């Protein structure tokens, strides 16, 4: 197929060493009019330095309240191929593992009904199919769901949970992140597909404090694997690291709590002072392994700066066992959602709600015992409220 539009600006982005998204759109344009028109539209954006997309219309599949994001060009007369260019969010499998056959299956369906363009993956973790028309949505859903795929979340709902690679290929995973993520996803299908919350809710699960999935920055509920008990030391392997790395400077000297030292050629850790930051384990993976009692710390509330400033998740449960059937966890989530439903305003994230009414109120209402792990430091003022039972009458 000859080129439908001249795209001198985008052509500049085919140059250079790194793989080019323009080349990808061009490949798709070989067999899709939608992709061909996308090239023309994006070229125009590059020329005018502004976007040519708008919202509008209501799109989705019957019965669901999410999983499709409506997108329309603001100049459909010029680029009819992208007059509609909706995104379909397919719920990715935990850990983003696929087989060649699974990838081909996705491609076959998408080539039939869509632009042939994808995002692997959207930032929330969905397998994103980029660009289709309203009339194809039901067909796409039937083709995918009949083959065992479902839509991800969007809107005021639980969003597609995601996780780090965990036990599948990481020695530091204290919890089975992929099993947990799959279980949460299956457990809350209704909450994902039929938006019932004040706003979005995201679960992200990391196997350890390295947090490769960035759960602490972008999940309303961040589940981060951790341990109790002593870091397991293989002293022979410690010796092997000598000469390869400077143990004193790179490991002991960088321990934030100063709880490590060498005693002769033995590495000694004062575990009661270790904050489990993961630095030493990451430096000497062969010599050090986490303690034996495994579980997770639950942190809650992170969100982007819109509207009242960015929040990072903070500790609400210092230690919880995360093992099937996760009863204690689901009971807590149920209570939290109920409280959010009762108290939250429309479009108020859980972290914002807690900020508005106060963390102590959250702890009281949910009957969670305060713990010093929940704060960096205690308050600085004596302006606190007492309740009736604190007063002697």
């Amino acid at each position, binding site marked *: 197929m000859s080129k439908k539009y001249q795209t001198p600006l985008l052509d500049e982005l085919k140059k250079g*060493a790194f793989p080019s998204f323009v080349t990808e759109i061009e*490949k798709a344009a070989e067999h899709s009019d939608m992709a061909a028109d996308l090239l023309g539209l*994006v070229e125009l954006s590059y020329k005018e*330095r502004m976007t040519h997309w708008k919202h509008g219309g209501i799109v989705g599949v019957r019965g669901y309240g999410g999983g499709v994001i409506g997108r329309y060009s603001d100049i459909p007369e010029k680029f009819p191929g992208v007059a509609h260019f909706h995104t379909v969010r397919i719920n990715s499998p935990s850990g983003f593992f696929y087989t060649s056959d699974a990838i081909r299956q996705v*491609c076959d369906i998408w080539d039939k009904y869509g632009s042939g363009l*994808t995002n*692997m993956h959207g930032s929330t973790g969905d397998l994103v199919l980029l660009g289709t028309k309203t009339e194809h949505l039901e067909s796409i859903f039937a083709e995918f*769901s009949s083959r065992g795929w479902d839509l991800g979340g969007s809107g005021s709902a639980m969003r597609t949970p995601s996780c780090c690679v965990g036990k599948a290929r990481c020695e530091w995973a204290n919890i089975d992140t992929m099993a947990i993520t*799959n279980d949460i996803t299956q457990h809350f299908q209704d909450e994902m597909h039929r938006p019932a919350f004040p706003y979005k809710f995201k679960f992200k699960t990391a196997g350890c404090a390295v947090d490769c999935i960035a759960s602490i*920055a972008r999940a309303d509920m961040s589940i981060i694997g951790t341990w109790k008990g002593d870091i397991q030391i293989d002293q022979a392997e410690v010796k092997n690291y000598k000469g390869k790395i400077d143990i004193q400077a790179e490991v002991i000297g960088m321990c934030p709590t100063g709880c490590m030292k060498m005693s002769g050629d033995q590495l000694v850790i004062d575990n009661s002072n270790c904050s489990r930051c993961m630095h030493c384990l990451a430096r000497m993976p062969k010599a050090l392994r986490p303690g034996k009692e495994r579980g997770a710390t639950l942190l809650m509330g992170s969100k982007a700066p819109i509207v009242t400033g960015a929040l990072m998740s903070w500790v609400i449960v210092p230690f919880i066992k995360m093992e099937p059937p996760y009863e204690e966890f689901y009971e807590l989530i149920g209570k939290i959602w109920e409280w959010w439903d009762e108290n939250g305003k429309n479009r108020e994230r859980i972290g914002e709600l807690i900020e508005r009414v106060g963390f102590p109120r959250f702890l009281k209402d949910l009957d969670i015992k305060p713990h010093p792990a929940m704060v960096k430091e205690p308050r600085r003022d004596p302006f606190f409220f007492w309740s009736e039972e604190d007063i002697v009458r």
Partner: protein
Amino acid sequence: MSELPQRQTDIGPPHYEQFLHPVIKKNYGKWKYHEILTPGSMVHVSDTGDKIYTVRVASPRLLSTDTLRVMADIAAKHCDGYLRFTTRNNVEFFVDAESKLAPLMSELKAKGFMIGGIGPGISNIVHTQGWVHCHSAATDASGLVKVIMDELHEYFTEKQLANRVRIAVACCVNMCGAVHCSDIALVGVHKTPPRIDDTNVKNSCEIPSTIASCPTSAISPDPAKKSVKIKLEKCMYCGNCYSVCPAMPIADPINDGIAIVVGGKVANLRSAPMFSKLAIPWLPNNPPRWPEVTNAVKQILNAYIAGAKKHERVGEWIKRIGWEKFFQEANLEFKIQHVDDFTFARETFRTTAAFKWTT
């Protein structure tokens, strides 16, 4: 219309187990340690003695089905049909013997894939949709990623740094792309409020939902014009109202631009996770290759390279030397926009007379 298969609802995603390489399945939860072999390959060794080798390649995230099929074919040929994607838009191929690494890597190279992204360098850039798919975009995302990685790709494929430098791009302040905790992040910013086209608001927008769309309650009805008005001092240029009402366009080619924030991280290693903080309030939107932006990123990166101690992340380096010193080292001008007046402003004021003299 041809027969469609029977739809099902609420079945959730396919179970991950069917997608795991047999060696990964067998050694699930039994991994002992890993070693980085090259910036694009690593080996994980299990307690059972089994090994799995991973080769990582970059992708632009925006992928055609054509390229996905090439990846699927390579995985079928070399990796028993198994592959994986990472959160940072890389693709991973697995083999179970060292002898299979070289053929896999040479085929990947021959097919034009860039191998790397493991270890203390620069992995792929987390980013959002931009002009390719979003109505709020103040800049493009894919294009910025491309031009920055074109400049820095040696840190993906071979060169090492004191620690990882995570880069992110968000094309507007909604920051779908999670830039708030990155070592270096670019955020598209609008500088001007939406322009209200009263006639079209009247004809094509639902006034109550337009008012409700504004996160800062800046929008109120304008009954005389059957339209809306914006309280300018309340507007934070987020573009939400434009999502709901296309008669309030916010895009402004001359004033839209790019802010750079630095020094964030999410990992807990050594120090607590940190938010990124403002380094440069505005750079012009200059497609297709954004020279001002790539230069600024290199300038900040070079200051980090010159100053950081081994294993220090950008934020840890800046914390050690102090932000006042950072502006000097990176040769950046400190402007009025750097002084916070938002939610957590008071925490940022310097409540000590001890600070470093800088020029």
